[in-house]
C-alpha cells in the first residue's frame, strides 16, 4: 500500500514537471504548427544555465527564473532568425530543429562536460513532509504546487488577456487572425519565447530530481510528444491532464512491468492517436 502511494505521489510530481515541459511545446505546435524538436534541448539548456548560475552564487529560485529567461531569449532568436523563414515547410522545420538540438547538445557537452551534474534541492524544500501519515519529499510537493501555479497563470493568460485571445484566435484560424489585424509574426515570436522559457524553467525545476546529463534532451523530448499527442495540441487543459496521465503511466509502468515499461507508455498514445487523431482535448487534428 505504501509503495502504491509513493508511486502515486511520484507520478503526480513527475506529471507536474512534464506539464511545465510540454505546455510550451503544446502552445508552439498548436499556434505555429511547428513540431519543435529542439524542445528537449531547451529543457536541458535551462538546467545547465542554472548549474552555472548557482555555482556563481545565485540562489536556486533566482537561477531558475534567470535560466528560464535566458532560454526564452534564445528561443526568440531562433524563431526570428530561423523558423520565421519556414512557414509551413514541415521537413525544413524538422531538419532545422533537429540540427539545433545537435548543436545545443554538443555545446552543453563542451561547456559542462559529460558527467551528470546534480542540482541541489533548495534549502527551504529539503527533507520530507508528512502527508496523510506518509513521509513524502517536500521538494516534490513543491513541484506540484509550482506546476499548478504555472498552469493557473497560463490559463489566466490564455483565457483572460488580450494576448491570450490572440493566441486562441491564432490556434483556431491563423489566416483569419491575420486578416483581423493580429500581428501574427510578433505573436509567434512571443509564443515561441514563452514556450522555450517554460521548457528552460522546467529543466531547472526538474534538476533536483533528474540531474542534468548529456542525453537528458533525448529522454525528455519523447515524453513531451506523448503528452501533447494525448492531450491534444494547443490545449492547455489537454497538456495538464495529459502530463499527469503520462506521469502515472511512466512510473507505474516502470514499477509494474519493467520489461514493457516503454510499451506501457507509448501503447496508449498509439491507441488514442489511431482512434482520435486530435488527442483527448485537441481541436486541431494533427
Amino acid at each position: 500500500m505504501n509503495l502504491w502511494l509513493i508511486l502515486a505521489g511520484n507520478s503526480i510530481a513527475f506529471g507536474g514537471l512534464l506539464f511545465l515541459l510540454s505546455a510550451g511545446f503544446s502552445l508552439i505546435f498548436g499556434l505555429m504548427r511547428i513540431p519543435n524538436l529542439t524542445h528537449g534541448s531547451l529543457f536541458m539548456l535551462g538546467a545547465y544555465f542554472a548549474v552555472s548560475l548557482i555555482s556563481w552564487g545565485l540562489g536556486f529560485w533566482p537561477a531558475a527564473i534567470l535560466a528560464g529567461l535566458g532560454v526564452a531569449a534564445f528561443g526568440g532568436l531562433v524563431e526570428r532568425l530561423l523558423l520565421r523563414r519556414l512557414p509551413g515547410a514541415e521537413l525544413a522545420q524538422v531538419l532545422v530543429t533537429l540540427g539545433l538540438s545537435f548543436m545545443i547538445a554538443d555545446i552543453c557537452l563542451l561547456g559542462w562536460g559529460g558527467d551528470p551534474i546534480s542540482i541541489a534541492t533548495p534549502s527551504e524544500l529539503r527533507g520530507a513532509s508528512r502527508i496523510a501519515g506518509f513521509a513524502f519529499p517536500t521538494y516534490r510537493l513543491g513541484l506540484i504546487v509550482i506546476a499548478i501555479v504555472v498552469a493557473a497563470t497560463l490559463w489566466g493568460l490564455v483565457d483572460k488577456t488580450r494576448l491570450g485571445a490572440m493566441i486562441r484566435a491564432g490556434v483556431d484560424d491563423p489566416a483569419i487572425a491575420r486578416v483581423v489585424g493580429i500581428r501574427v509574426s510578433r505573436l509567434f515570436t512571443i509564443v515561441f519565447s514563452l514556450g522555450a522559457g517554460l521548457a528552460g524553467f522546467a529543466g531547472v525545476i526538474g534538476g533536483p530530481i533528474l540531474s542534468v546529463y548529456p542525453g537528458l534532451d533525448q529522454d525528455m523530448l519523447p515524453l513531451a510528444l506523448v503528452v501533447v499527442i494525448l492531450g491534444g495540441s494547443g490545449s492547455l487543459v489537454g497538456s495538464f491532464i495529459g502530463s499527469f496521465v503520462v506521469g502515472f503511466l511512466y512510473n507505474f509502468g516502470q514499477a509494474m512491468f519493467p520489461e514493457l515499461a516503454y510499451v506501457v507508455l507509448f501503447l496508449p498514445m498509439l491507441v488514442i492517436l489511431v482512434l482520435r487523431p486530435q488527442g483527448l482535448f485537441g481541436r486541431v487534428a494533427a
Partner: protein
Amino acid sequence: MRRLTLALALAALAMLPLWVGNSYYVNIASQILLYAIFALALNVLVGYAGLVSLGHAGLFGIAAYAGALAINNGATHLVAIVAALAATLVAAAAFAVLALRGTGLGFVMITVAIGQIVWGVAYRWISITNGDNGVAINTRPSPFGLSLTSTPNFYWATLIVFLVAVTAIAIVAASPFGASLRGTRDQPRRMTALGYHIWLIRFLAFLFSGLWSGVAGMLFLYYNQFISPQAVALGASAEALLMVISGGSGTLLGPIVGAALVVIMKNVVSAYIVRWNFVLGAIFVAIVIFMPEGIVPGSVRLARWCLAKLRPQVTEVTAAATPRPESGL
C-alpha cells in the same frame, strides 16, 4: 552525357577497394551504401508519398533482430534473410495500417509511437532481445562460396545489393504506380476524384519502403555482426530522416548524398573534430537556410545559376535539359 557519368561512377564504385587502400575507409564506404539503401527506402515514403516517418528504424531493427535470432537458433543465412524480410513485411503492414489512420503530423506521431514501442521491447524484453547487451552473430554469409568476412568482399556484396535497391526504386519511381504515389502527395483530394485508391497506394508504398529498410537492416547486422536497441531508438529514425531531408527528398541521388554526409561526419570527421555533432547540426541548419530543398536539388540550382552567369545564352537550353527531380537523378 548522363550515361557516361553514370558508367564512370559505377566503375569507380566497383573499383573502390582497389584504389582506396585502407580497409577502414572501405568499411566506411560499405556503411554509406547500406545507410543509403535505408535512406532511399525511407524516401519512398517521405519524398514520393509525402509521408514523414520518424519510426523507420523500427523496421530496420526488426529485420536485424529477426535475422540475428534466426541465425543464433541454427538457421542458415538464406533462411535467416528470408525470415527477417518476411517479418519486416508483416511489421510494415501493421505499421502502415496504424499510421495511415493519421495524416500530416498525426502520421508522424503514430510512427514515433510505434518506433518507441519497438525500441521499448528491444530494450526491456531482455529474455528475447538481451536488452542493452544486444545480440551478436558469429558469421557472415558466404554466397556462392565467397566469404563476406573480408572487407572488400563485404563491400562488393553491399554494392551489389545497393545497385539492386537503387534500380528497383528507380523503376518504381518512373512507373505509373510511382506517378500515382507522387500524385497522392501533391493533390490527394484530386487523386481521389480522379479514381485513385489513396489508402491502398500509400499502403503498398509503405510495404515497399519497409522491405528495403529490412534489407538495409540485414546488411547492418552482417556488417557489425551485432544488433542492439540503439539501432532502433528515436535517434536512429531521426538520423535516417535527416539523411533524406539534407540530401533532398523526392530525388534518387539526394538520400544517397545525405547518407554519405551523415556517415562521413560520424565516422571520419569525428576522428578529427571532437565537436562533430555540433558541426553536423550546423550543416543541417545551413542547409535549411541556403538549400532548403536539400543538397542535391540545391546544388543543381546553384550549378544552373553559375552557368547562367557565365554563359547567359545557354540558360534556355540548360533549363530544358536539367533533369527534373521527379524523373530520375
